[in-house]
């Protein structure tokens, strides 16, 4: 049994969504820019390619995210590694949440979710989708969550690390309320920091190289993590669960130790955070493994993340088909034997509330 919490699929170009858009948005998407609406993207490029080279033909795609077919996903990943359930996160569609035009973003999100259902989730029973929402317009995000969130094909809600305001801020209450109402988990996944309406990846200024960016890209997620804890999201929306996906593991240990210490002195400015912040983590937050930090001595990693109670909080993630994909057995081998079964599937099954028969 294996649950993969982070598989990426996406459209090749926005034109793939035209059939799922209303007439006015179709017109806007088609007539904007030079060749249709252009999405904001990273100012950096991976110097050797974003995507695993064995899943696409270079030059075969017009977009920056080469199109992965369902057959390729089955052959190279689901079948090859006997993935029981794969949770599908967006590629370029993650950028809808950092578009300046929130009304357009809302319509694109709905079209994408319908496209995902139609082309992937209804076609492959091993896949579960994450709902893409216009996070910059929380009321519309809540409407989208309620529109599709009751479908079994969706396992939760996707929020990118990139944002204008950290996700614990009260402006997001409508979004959390909808997530809480449907008991759907939220995955905060590193994506598009420094892009669109999002803040810079760090306050130091813009990195020069993609390699720098990628080492720092969890910064948005750490901001959301701390914000969610300090604003008492889990007190006010107790059915809410949050996964931190692709932000590494070790940094969360340091932030939690520091935040727990600060809370003792600063609790009176955040009275809705009633317990020590780390206490909420064990009940409500889970961490995806990829990209697993890889010190020369794997024992150093195990010691560094023990505080996170990995046997209860870690969930396997591959990030297929991206360049920093983590293969399942290699990942699990780096962890103590007694953690592996939980990391392989048990923690994710509980977190996403996947029905046991789906794993048969």
């Amino acid at each position: 049994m294996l649950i993969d919490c982070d598989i990426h699929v996406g459209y090749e170009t926005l034109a793939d969504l035209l059939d799922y858009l209303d007439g006015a948005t179709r017109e806007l998407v088609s007539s904007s820019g030079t060749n249709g609406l252009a999405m904001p993207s990273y100012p950096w490029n991976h110097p050797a390619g974003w995507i695993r080279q064995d899943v696409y033909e270079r030059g075969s795609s017009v977009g920056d995210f080469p199109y992965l077919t369902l057959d390729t996903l089955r052959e190279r990943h689901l079948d090859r590694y006997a993935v029981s359930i794969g949770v599908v996160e967006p590629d370029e569609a993650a950028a809808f949440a950092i578009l300046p035009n929130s009304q357009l973003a809302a319509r694109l999100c709905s079209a994408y979710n319908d496209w995902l259902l139609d082309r992937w989730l209804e076609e492959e029973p091993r896949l579960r989708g994450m709902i893409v929402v216009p996070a910059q317009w929380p009321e519309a995000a809540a409407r989208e969550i309620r529109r599709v969130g009751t479908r079994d094909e969706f396992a939760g809600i996707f929020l990118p690390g990139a944002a204008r305001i950290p996700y614990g801020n009260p402006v997001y209450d409508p979004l959390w309320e909808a997530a809480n109402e449907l008991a759907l988990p939220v995955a905060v996944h590193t994506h598009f920091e420094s892009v669109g309406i999002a803040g810079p990846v760090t306050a130091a200024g813009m990195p020069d190289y993609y390699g720098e960016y990628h080492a720092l890209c969890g910064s948005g997620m750490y901001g959301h993590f701390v914000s969610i804890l300090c604003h008492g999201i889990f007190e006010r929306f107790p059915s809410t669960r949050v996964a931190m996906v692709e932000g590494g593991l070790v940094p969360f240990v340091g932030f939690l130790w520091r935040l727990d210490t600060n809370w003792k002195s600063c609790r009176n400015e955040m009275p809705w955070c009633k317990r020590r912040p780390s206490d909420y983590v064990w009940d409500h937050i889970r961490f995806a493994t990829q990209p697993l930090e890889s010190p020369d001595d794997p024992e150093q990693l195990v010691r560094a993340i023990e505080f996170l109670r990995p046997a209860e909080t870690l969930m396997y993630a591959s990030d297929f088909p991206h360049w920093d994909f983590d293969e399942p057995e290699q990942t699990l081998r780096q962890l103590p034997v007694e953690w592996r079964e939980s990391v392989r599937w048990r923690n994710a099954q509980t977190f996403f509330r996947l029905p046991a028969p789906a794993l048969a």
Partner: protein
Amino acid sequence: MSTKAQREARLPLDHAPREGTVHLLEIGGHRIGLVRVGDSLHALADRCPHRGAPLCSGRITTPIEVRDGGVGLGERASILRCPWHKWEFEIATGRCVVDPRLRVRKYAVRLEGDEIVVSLDHA
């Protein structure tokens, strides 16, 4: 015990890979990529020592190096880049450019008349 036939593969010299391409062979169950760098032929295991990816389906590239304080190109088509995590390997030595502890296995290549002979012997 392997027979001699299972330990070698032969191909006509005019089937030698062009620069920048890999000719894949299978010898006794081992997948091996034959690659040309300049006038030399090299045979490398089709398995990345980092995470086990099919290395020989990666791209052959020219390294970018520091030259006189700027950047320049190194030996043409001398690097094999893993298709998964993009780690680079020097084709002539099998050495991993970014982690000296790793080396891709190299096999012996020789010319016999008009034939290229690749064997499971270590290069």
